[in-house]
């Protein structure tokens, strides 16, 4: 298991990648799945940083990863404004090119690469649990 905290700044994406890569390597997660987990976590973190903190203060996003018996579980906690990604609308991927909208793809990618997404609002925090069967 690994736990780490990231500041509310997009430059922390490199630290996120480093922590995750080290952990995945230590427990033998293949490169492709490591990429998919990294992408889901990146999309979520970017969303939290872009929309979660309207104030100018420093905040921390706490991440815990665990890999047991072929199930990779990530818990992400932040004290930003309430945001439930499982409620987000699905983008229309089949529409004509001219109608394709810029945006909405991040959550679509999380849904595609993860097997389960659970959201709770607890003690003034967003708690999201992502699960991927390896």
């Amino acid at each position, binding site marked *: 298991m690994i736990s780490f905290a990231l500041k509310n700044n997009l430059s922390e994406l490199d630290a996120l990648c480093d922590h995750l890569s080290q952990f995945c390597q230590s427990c033998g997660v293949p490169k492709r799945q490591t990429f998919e987990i990294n992408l889901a976590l990146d999309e979520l973190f970017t969303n939290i940083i872009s929309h979660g903190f309207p104030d100018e203060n420093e905040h921390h996003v706490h991440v815990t990863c665990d890999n047991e018996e072929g199930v990779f579980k990530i818990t992400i906690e932040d004290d930003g404004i309430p945001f439930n990604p499982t409620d987000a609308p699905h983008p229309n991927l089949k529409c004509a090119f001219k109608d394709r909208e810029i*945006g909405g793809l991040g959550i679509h990618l999380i849904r595609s690469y993860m097997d389960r997404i659970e959201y709770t609002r607890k003690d003034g925090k967003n708690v999201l649990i992502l699960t991927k069967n390896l």
Partner: protein
Amino acid sequence: MDITETKHDYYSVFRLNGRLDSNTATGFEQKLFECIENGTQRLILDFQDLDYISSAGLRVILKATKNLKSAEGKLVLCSMQDYVKEVFEISGFDSFLPIEATLDEAVKTV
């Protein structure tokens, strides 16, 4: 992320090296649109050395494609890692973007 731009007679090639995420997408967008505004309407993005892409990178590519299509220009991608290609497929971007296996093929398409 490093971006190398090579100009040819009627097209430019952008070779991306590293990670294209929400932290690096802004710099990439600036370089790409600077080239388009300077009159180059045919572009190749060479992803041979691209290790990673997130939706922030896809957003820039969609924006550039929309811009180029309205100006009769063209954007062609090539040499993707298979897991990078899957991101384009899951997002439905392969339905409107030419994705070639090699740079040589991309040059023919552009």
